[in-house]
Structure formats: C-alpha cells, structure tokens
C-alpha cells in the first residue's frame, strides 16, 4: 500500500493562532504525534518560548481561548502556574497543557503578551 499525503492529513486538525500583532495563522496540527499547542506553535516558528519544555512551570506559552471549544479541566499544576503569571484572564490557558486532539479541531487561541 502506498501512503499519500491525504492519508496523513486524516490525522490532522486545524488550529488558529492569533499572534501578538493580531495576525491570524492557520496551522495544521497532527493528532497522532502526542503534541500540544505550545509545541505546534514552536514547530511553525511562532513566537512562543515554551521555556520549561511543557511542564506547566513557566507560563511562557499562555494563550487565551477565543472559540467555544470545551477543553478538559485544568490540572492543579496549570492553575498554580497561572496564579504566578501575568495578563491572566478567565479564558487563560497554558498552550503546553492543551493536547492536539480531534475535539479541538478549528480552535482559536490568542497568544498572551510576554
């Protein structure tokens, strides 16, 4: 069997990221690579630092959820980190804690200020 591009696209969702200048980026994100939003942003070279590597320990990947997607409940670690971060709003999330799954296909997230 020969795999084509469309076979791979089956496991891909769309993620919309609004950068700090207000520009929207439509990203293809794989659901079968155990990735999260922070990592997808980095792979597209968007200005997300992800300093701690995804351990919910630095808040450099803070984003605001701007679509109506239901996300899994935040872990204690994520809430604790957001407690220490700035520019935090009710819809703040850490990108590294949002897994790429089919449920978030079409999600819109805005990068929080640095």
């Amino acid at each position: 069997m020969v795999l084509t591009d469309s076979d791979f696209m089956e496991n891909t969702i769309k993620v919309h990221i609004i950068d700090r200048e207000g520009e929207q980026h439509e990203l293809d994100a794989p659901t079968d690579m155990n990735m999260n939003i922070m990592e997808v942003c980095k792979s597209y070279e968007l200005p997300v630092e992800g300093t701690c590597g995804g351990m919910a320990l630095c808040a450099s990947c803070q984003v605001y959820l701007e679509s109506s997607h239901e996300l899994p409940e935040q872990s204690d670690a994520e809430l604790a980190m957001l407690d220490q971060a700035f520019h935090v709003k009710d819809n703040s999330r850490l990108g590294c804690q949002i897994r790429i799954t089919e449920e978030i296909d079409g999600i819109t997230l805005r990068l929080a200020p640095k």
Partner: protein
Amino acid sequence: MIQTDIIIIGAGPVGLFTVFEAGLLKLRCHLIDSLPVPGGQLTEIYPKKPIYDIPGFPIVNAGDLIDNLMKQIEVFKPQFTLGESAVSLEETPENHFIVTTNKGTKHQAPVVIIAGGLGVFEPRKPPIENLADFEDKGVEYIIRDPKFYQDKRVVISGGGDSALDWTIYLVENKIASEVSLVHRRTSFRGHLDSVQKVMDMANDGRIKLITDAEVVGLSGNGKLHSVTIRHTTMGDIVKEADHFVPLFGLTPSLGPIADWGLEIEKNAVKVNTFDYSTNRKGVFAVGDINTYPGKLKLILCGFHEGTLAVQSAFAKIYPNKKNVLKYTTVNGVNGF
C-alpha cells in the same frame, strides 16, 4: 582574582559533568551560577520531576541527578561562585579571559565554557508601567535581609509559597509595622499550613489580606509612597506603603551573554559542532544555551558537548602536550 583552567558559566547538569571530563584531563574548573545552589533548572524548576532519558538510569529525579553529578565530580574539587551572575567577559592580551560577576568577583582562565542553560534566572516582574523607576527605591523582588523592613509598611504581592512565607515571617518576627498581602485570586496554592496561618492572621487583623486584586500602579517622589491596588469588583484602592515586594517566582533570560561578542541565533549561542567552540577563540558553549544544525536540547547531548569541548580546551591550554583518550575502566579516576 580567582585563577583556574576553565571558567564554567552555569552549574546545571551539563556544567557539572563538564567538570568531570575536564578533570580526567587534569584541568581544574571554577563554576559561576546566579542561583544559590548548583543544579540550574533541575534544582530551580523541577527537582521532583522524573527524567527517563539519562542512559543507564531508567528513571531518575532531577534533584537526584544533580546530587549524583556533585558526587561524581567531587574528586576534581570544583570551586563555585554561587548566587552571582556573570556579567562581563574581558580578554587579556594573552587571550585569557576575565569573567566578572554582578557582585564584582573576578575570575581568570585561558578557557571559558558557557553552560548557561536557559540563561540567568531573574525575578518575574509584574507589568506595572513605572515599576523600574522604583527599583531599590521601595520595590524589591527578593527579600535579602528581613531587618531592612523593620517598622516599615510593606505590600507583598503573589500567591505562592514565597509570598505566604515572607508575609508570615515579617509579622511573626514583629519586623514590619504593617503587612498587606495582595493576591489575584481568592485561593492560595501554597503549603496548606502556610495558607491557614495567613488566613488566621487576616482574621485576627494582624495582616491586611486583599484578594481578587492586583497592584497596578506605584507613586512616589524618588521613593515609593503608595501603591494602587485594583480590586475586581471594588475598583481602585490607593494604599500608602514604604515597600512593594512582588514575589512571582523566577524566570530565565539570556542576559548579559548576549553582549559578549558571540554569534547569537534564535536566542542561543552559535557553535561549531567539531568542539562546540564559539566565534571567540577559547570560548565554548554547551548544553541548552548553544545552537547548531540538528541541535536537541537534551541533557545527554549536553554531556557529549562538554566532553568534546574540554578536549579543545586542553589543546589550547597545553598546545605542546599530547593527549590521548583514556578509559576510566583502565585508569580509574584520579582526583586532585
């Protein structure tokens, strides 16, 4: 002036292991780190986290890995300048280097290896417009000497353990004349007994606890006079204060290394993968702080980088001496 063979900037895992490989070549090392203890981000950010990709260790806690590295390098008697950050790199006419810290400590060596990881850990600063104007004029990010706050009115901001602990300390030891704790949320995520203590102190009127609020403004004339606290429902409150101490943890930044004449790419130091040398002869960069095609930010890659870097360090320090790879299984480890 501290003299050594290799100045290593950064006492994280890669800096520490570099001491071992240098020691096998009979090169002495002196490490400089801005944190008060060795270990870098492993100690500062994730001491209790398990690491699974250190060869030979199916699982090892970050803190334990640092303890083991410290044991491993003990025989080579590394020296440390801790709690100070390297701010300047000067070159002597003999192509030696003088590294000076923010506290003025000077170190001289023919070789510098930068193992700076994420950079220098600095206090996370709240986004208040004129915050910098009041630094050391009433705004401090770290409490160095509690006595400094004797009979002063102090506003502490933050919801973690350091905010809670210092609030308790300044009150229990009857240091500050008034302590206010401002926190953005209603609940605290520190140790339960600290949270309880702070709640009790608030109920007894020993501290002013202002939750669901943030400090958003500072005013004063050359010295802090008052802070503006914004409450989510009650609006702005202006509170007179002698000191404002925001305690929001530490965050890393590349810091002064960026101004050392090294080639920087994507916030990292560009190196040659032959020996992880930078564009300055005698200056190497290993671990998370460097970049090269194919770079992976892994501890195990940093161990390899440090190992190769010290071979070239040896060649620079002893240009006329021959050096061959010796196995520790054959020769053991002969310390200083």
